[in-house]
């Protein structure tokens, strides 16, 4: 059987058995909550069967829903007649379902009479219309009674359903009508409890036969209990292992080993039963969207990213319906028809993107469309009409706040109620369901651009790998997923924790890392951080914000099952949950999001621009660059951008060897040439000599200096330029005139193949600050060329790959010139050039290829795909010249 269909059947029979109970409850106690639930269930059935192409089912459900809608809106009262009628509709649905299950098609027949009665009820003409058929039905009851009973029976004997069907075919109206009602009239006079049981049995019996064969549906609670038991088993096993570990030749060792293995397997197995990729919940969506696009005459492209993201099945079940609703909404309300899209200057095909990923201990699911966005005016009008807010209140709200009204119950802005959506179930149910599992749903919308829903679900039940740390004698778990690296800081280590007005920071490579003291944050103790011999810094990333958490010790990583904290502790945002470790102790799980928020960085978390573009332009203006300040060949201060320096080393002067009269040392298994800053090597007589190590791929060279003074963060603003080789210019660094050394000058001295000729002059200075995009996968060259080009008066943005560059094109960045490497992972330079030239706004921008393989053939190929010029990678001089020429040519042409 079609997967979709079998799933629909299982799901619907479950919904139906719930419905029976709920309806009876409703009759006794017409509570809005129950009604809402019934309405939603019927709505779901209707919606789903609409997509599956089951018109008969859909019509019955639609009519039933109409009645329920009226009741919900208070236009109809809950009378026994109404309930009876709806129950009849449900029984009809069951009957059709039963047939569907056996024959995979809807039975022939006609429900117009039932639908007419439902519609009559909906329009308020209920009483007389319902009376007559109700009276007629019992009369017909005894006769057709055997029909449904017989229907399943012939099945094994006679596979063809035809035998049972001819009758309705001959006399469609009279016979078919009583037949589906068979279940109903008989129980009608009985008390509700019995009536409820009878159809349930009827529906269940055939259902089991088909579905039971493939899978067993197990209550999640059972799995949950199983999980708890397994955890206990693991703990007991650990205790036993601990006891035996002390003795060498215990007779228990071997069996215990076995027990241990089995326990581990069991634990994994049970855990696996609970985890499912989110793609399972999405499986139905392409079909739904496809059918929707046909029905609504729209062109829709559904993209699903991160389908493999694993989710606890319980959570999965709970978000499945909301997700379906939301995708449906995006496709139905969000996206415009092709005509409207064309008018708005958008591609005809509308996009709905589903994206799931883990972030900071949460699972994030984004549903975005590029449609028309939410209609603010209509939401306002509706909010006023429904009495949710006054005009004045709305005026005081931001647009984003107003959008949130769509999450209120009974709120639908669709102009007409389609069979797809627009009844106001949906968003409020979505929100309720998500909040029930402790998640949040956010909404962003831009008129004309589309809307994005972001569902954030805590890892309530998910299994994560966590780093166990200790602080002030207490242990905590940090989700491994947000940990970037660990840094050990001792009293005498090179980079210590420094304070800026009591705010601890750490110099980590080329960046200043803000630190958070866990001890202070959690108020574990009042003592400071200073007196410890060594501390550890857990470098943590949340969104685009990176910070370090200071802890005392770091233990192992452990797989943990996140359990929610008790309700009385939910207000503490520092914890995302708690768990039981292998040794049986309870441990709190830190929430990096909460910590980032508590340290005042919550604003950065939602940073939409998460691109890794290095906006070097900023380094001119306000952003600071880390500079390594040193002395060499004189007493004046010199500096190089720290990012260029791979390592700082001290070499033993005694280890310096000479070859061809040039000094070098054996360094990490290779020969590293040593270059001095002013040409004449002045090694110390003995002891250790500080060396700046520059490294790119297999090349490593050492720049001999007299003394390393400091690492500072300052604006790199070259004030005085110079023609002196090896010097970019002079800048004021921390209040002192400092020579900025051009590392690029020294590299060719070490390796002939690094550069052609050392540059003597710079290209003509550009005052207009043309913007240059530099595409190179090597961070070294990005760091090398960026200051070089900046200093020559260009505004440089460096990216590490063609994909990123093309993404910037999409984002609307403009450049005067593009420099691209040829050998890059992913899309290479030739392909990139072809892509730039093929279409888009960048078609006319001059392109310069940059490569170490500068053969004539490459030149030729480069020109064919669209490069304007080709420059060998290390020839700075001709690079600058080429740039100037190309820009001048463009200017001349313009």
């Amino acid at each position: 059987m079609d997967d979709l269909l079998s799933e629909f059947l299982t799901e619907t029979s479950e919904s139906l058995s719930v419905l029976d109970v709920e309806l009876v409850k409703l009759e006794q106690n017409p509570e809005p909550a129950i009604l809402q639930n019934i309405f939603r269930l019927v709505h779901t059935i209707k919606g789903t069967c609409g997509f599956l192409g089951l018109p008969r089912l859909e019509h019955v459900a639609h009519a039933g829903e109409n009645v329920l809608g009226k009741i919900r809106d208070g236009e109809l009262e809950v009378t026994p007649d109404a309930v009876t009628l709806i129950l009849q509709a449900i029984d009809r649905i069951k009957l059709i379902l039963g047939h569907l299950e056996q024959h995979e098609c809807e039975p022939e027949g006609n429900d117009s009479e039932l639908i007419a009665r439902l519609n009559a009820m909906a329009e308020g003409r209920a009483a007389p219309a319902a009376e007559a058929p109700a009276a007629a039905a019992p009369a017909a009851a005894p006769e057709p009674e055997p029909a449904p009973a017989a229907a399943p029976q012939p099945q094994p004997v006679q596979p063809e359903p035809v035998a049972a069907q001819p009758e309705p075919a001959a006399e469609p109206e009279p016979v078919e009508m009583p037949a589906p009602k068979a279940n109903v009239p008989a129980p009608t006079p009985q008390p509700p409890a019995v009536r409820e049981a009878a159809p349930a049995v009827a529906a269940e019996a055939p259902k089991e036969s088909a579905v039971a064969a493939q899978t067993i549906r197990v209550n999640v609670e059972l799995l949950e209990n199983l999980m708890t038991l397994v955890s206990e088993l693991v703990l007991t096993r650990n205790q036993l292992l601990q006891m035996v570990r002390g003795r060498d030749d215990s007779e228990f060792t071997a069996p215990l080993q076995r027990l241990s293995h089995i326990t581990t397997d069991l634990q994994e197995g049970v855990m696996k039963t609970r985890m499912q990729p989110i793609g399972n919940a999405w499986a139905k969506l392409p079909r739904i969207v496809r059918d929707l696009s046909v029905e609504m005459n729209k062109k829709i492209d559904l993209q699903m990213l991160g389908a493999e993201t694993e989710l606890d099945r319980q959570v999965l079940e709970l978000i499945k319906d909301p997700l379906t609703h939301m995708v449906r909404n995006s496709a139905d309300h969000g996206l415009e028809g092709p005509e409207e899209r064309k008018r708005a200057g958008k591609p005809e095909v509308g996009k709905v993107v589903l994206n799931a990923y883990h972030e900071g201990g949460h699972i994030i699911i984004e549903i975005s469309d590029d449609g028309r966005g939410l209609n603010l005016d209509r939401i306002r009008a509706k909010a006023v009409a429904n009495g949710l807010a006054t005009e004045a209140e709305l005026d005081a709200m931001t647009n984003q706040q107003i959008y949130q009204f769509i999450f209120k119950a009974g709120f639908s802005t669709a102009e007409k109620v389609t069979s797809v959506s627009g009844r106001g179930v949906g968003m409020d149910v979505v929100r309720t369901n998500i909040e029930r599992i402790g998640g949040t749903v956010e909404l962003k919308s831009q008129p004309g651009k589309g809307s994005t829903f972001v569902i954030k679900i805590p890892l309530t039940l998910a299994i994560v790998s966590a780093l166990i740390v200790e602080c002030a004698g207490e242990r905590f778990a940090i989700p491994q997923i947000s940990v970037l690296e660990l840094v050990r800081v001792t009293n005498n280590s090179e980079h210590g924790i420094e304070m800026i007005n009591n705010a601890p920071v750490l110099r980590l490579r080329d960046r200043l890392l803000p630190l958070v003291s866990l001890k202070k944050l959690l108020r574990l103790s009042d003592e400071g951080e200073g007196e410890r011999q060594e501390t550890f810094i857990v470098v943590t990333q949340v969104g685009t914000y990176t910070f370090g958490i200071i802890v005392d010790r770091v233990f192992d990583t452990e797989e943990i099952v996140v359990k929610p904290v008790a309700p009385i502790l939910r207000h503490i945002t520092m914890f995302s949950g708690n768990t039981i470790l292998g040794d049986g102790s309870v441990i709190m799980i830190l929430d990096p999001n909460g910590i980032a928020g508590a340290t005042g960085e919550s604003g950065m978390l939602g940073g939409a621009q998460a691109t890794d573009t290095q906006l070097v332009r900023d380094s001119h203006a306000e952003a600071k660059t880390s500079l390594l300040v040193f002395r060499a060949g004189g007493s004046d201060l010199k500096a190089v951008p720290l990012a260029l320096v791979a390592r700082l080393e001290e070499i033993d002067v005694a280890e310096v060897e000479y070859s061809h009269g040039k000094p070098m040392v054996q360094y990490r298994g290779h020969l590293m040439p040593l270059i001095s800053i002013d040409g004449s090597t002045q090694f110390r007589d003995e002891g250790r000599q500080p060396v700046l190590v520059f490294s790119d791929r297999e090349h490593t060279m050492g720049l001999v200096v007299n003394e390393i003074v400091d690492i500072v963060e300052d604006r790199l603003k070259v004030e005085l330029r110079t023609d002196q080789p090896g010097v970019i210019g002079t800048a004021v660094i921390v209040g002192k005139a400092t020579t900025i050394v051009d590392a690029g000058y020294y590299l060719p001295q070490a390796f002939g193949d690094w550069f052609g000729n050392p540059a003597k002059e710079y290209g003509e200075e550009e005052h207009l600050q043309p913007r240059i995009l530099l595409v190179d996968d090597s961070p070294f060259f990005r760091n090398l060329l960026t200051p070089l080009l900046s200093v020559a008066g260009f505004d440089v943005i460096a990216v590490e790959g063609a994909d990123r560059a093309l993404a910037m094109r999409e984002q609307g960045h403009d450049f005067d010139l593009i420099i691209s490497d040829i050998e890059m992972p992913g899309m290479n330079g030739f392909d990139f050039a072809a892509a730039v030239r093929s279409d888009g706004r960048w078609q006319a921008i001059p392109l310069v290829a940059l490569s170490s393989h500068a053969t004539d053939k490459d030149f030729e190929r480069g020109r064919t795909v669209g490069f304007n010029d080709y420059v060998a990678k290390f020839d700075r001089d001709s690079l600058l010249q080429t740039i100037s020429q190309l820009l001048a040519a463009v200017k001349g042409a313009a």
Partner: protein
Amino acid sequence: MNQIVPAKRQGTDLAAPEMQDYVTMLIEGQMFGIPVLTVQDVLGAQKITRIPLAPREVAGSLNLRGRIVTAIDVRLRLDLPRRREEDKGMSVVVDMGGELYSLMVDSVGEVLSLPAAKFERNPPTLDPKWREFSMGIYRLEGKLLVVLDVAKLLDFTRSE
């Protein structure tokens, strides 16, 4: 005070008519009781993990057969001084809305079956804090038993 009557009636439905079973506990010499059916477990001293930033009455959390139980120091909840280090103490585990809480007391005593006739309302002179957590008083031989309202005891949203 109007909750007392329905609460009591609910209890008597479960037990023998007009009789209610209580687990008794001692804190600072005062006897307290909670309905026996709400009690899941009685524990001795446990290894408790401190929870930073939690309300001071929350002593921490502990592992009870694979479930995480939040421990509440009833002394602090009742504005009594902290238990002395050397006193081990005992705990009564209760279920509240599917979550387990361990109420830390000095000691846990026997289960008493008490007739409704001996039940009294809180005397108006009772400390407001105690009055909040007490459902009423039973007159026993020689002493009084305060019936703790576990739901209110664990409702931290009101007291903060």
